[in-house]
């Protein structure tokens, strides 16, 4: 069964048709980004643009996009950001959801978190986010970008912080930005030095401890299990939608309670995230709390 939900930030599709004793359900988040060129004024080959698009801030040299450079930049952005976020998490089925029987054995699949990034031009209908992009002159190493204004070098690896041993902490800014577009906060939000009620863009929110500053939602490139949050939230919403459908059509529910693809328990279950493939489990394996990370032998 395939179910779809649309959110403000992205679309989600839950696919249980792919489940078998070796393959988990798949939850794909699709992010549609619309990119818009920022070019020098008057059709000039070169010009300047203010940091953050704010006329009171310093200017940087920019150059005109060409068709080739625009296509290449978009392709690189989409390919590298998608590769970074796609297929990195598995949500462990602690809700008894999606059970299926094969060869007389009942299995409980986990959920594999997939990510699809679509890079459109800004005029395309249905984009979740619209982003302006300047093409920096070769002599410029930095531009003051923000959540809706990127520069052509945001896909490059650059130094963000320095750890306690004096080593640089490097990041490709666009993967961090895509994390925000998926709904992720900075790594230290919620800690005493970065309260959610304050400005969560403050330097301290990017991580103080070495491990934190190296996180992708800090100043580095490391993924963490908590970065599976958007997929977990999407899954919770599928459970709510499923329950809502049952309430709207109670007759079908009482005739066949199995129509609830995600049981009510899903609303309160944790779906703990792992960063390693976990295979579907049998009821006995679930009860024993066993995790299957090596391909098991299952009856045909």
């Amino acid at each position, binding site marked *: 069964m395939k179910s779809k939900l649309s959110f403000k930030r992205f679309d989600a599709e839950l696919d249980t048709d792919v489940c078998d004793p070796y393959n988990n359900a798949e939850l794909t988040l699709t992010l549609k980004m619309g990119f818009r060129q920022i070019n020098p004024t008057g059709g000039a080959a070169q010009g300047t643009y203010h*940091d*953050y698009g704010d006329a009171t801030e*310093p200017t940087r040299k920019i150059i005109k996009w060409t068709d080739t450079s625009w296509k290449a930049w978009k392709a690189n952005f989409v390919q590298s950001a998608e590769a970074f976020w796609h297929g990195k998490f598995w949500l462990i089925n602690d809700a008894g959801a999606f059970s299926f029987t094969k060869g007389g054995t009942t299995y409980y699949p986990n959920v594999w978190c997939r990510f699809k990034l679509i890079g459109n031009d800004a005029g395309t209908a249905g984009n979740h986010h619209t982003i302006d992009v300047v093409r920096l002159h070769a002599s410029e190493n930095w531009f003051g*970008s923000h959540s809706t204004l990127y520069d052509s070098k945001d896909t490059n690896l650059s130094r963000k*912080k*320095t750890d306690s041993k004096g080593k640089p902490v490097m990041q490709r800014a666009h993967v*961090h930005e895509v994390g925000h577009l998926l709904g992720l906060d900075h790594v230290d939000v919620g800690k005493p030095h970065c309260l959610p009620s304050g400005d969560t863009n403050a*330097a301290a929110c*990017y991580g103080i401890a070495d491990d934190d500053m190296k996180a992708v939602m800090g100043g580095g490139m490391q993924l963490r299990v908590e970065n599976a949050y958007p997929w977990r939230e999407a899954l919770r919403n599928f459970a709510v939608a499923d329950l809502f459908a049952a309430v709207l059509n109670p007759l079908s529910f009482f005739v066949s309670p199995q129509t609830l693809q995600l049981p009510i328990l899903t609303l309160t279950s944790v779906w703990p995230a792992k960063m390693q493939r976990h295979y579907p489990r049998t009821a006995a394996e679930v009860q024993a709390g066993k995790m299957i990370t090596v391909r098991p032998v299952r009856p045909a």
Partner: protein
Amino acid sequence: MMFGSKIVAFAAALATVFWLTGLSPSKQASADTLAARNCMMDAIKQSVCIYQAILEDVDKNYPMRGGGGIGRIVQNSTTSYSVYLLQEGHQDVRIYEVKVAKGKVTITSVTEKTITH
């Protein structure tokens, strides 16, 4: 006359020692003392001392080493300065309170705020 020539001889000997060792009274002084002296000279020297103290603190204590660096430093009042540090999506602003007493610059407090773009 004899006494006067002894003083001259002593001064000459002292100058020779300084010349040979490369030492001089001003070079021996600590950076703080040196800054304090210069700070007392005129308003420009005093401003330079204050900005140097602020810049040293930013270099030593501001952790976000990437970004666009220092965008500007603005004097808010006689004893208050704001340093704007350019970062992706935001600017960190470090606000310095300084005290200048007897030509010596002391940073009395540093607070931070963030401007989100």
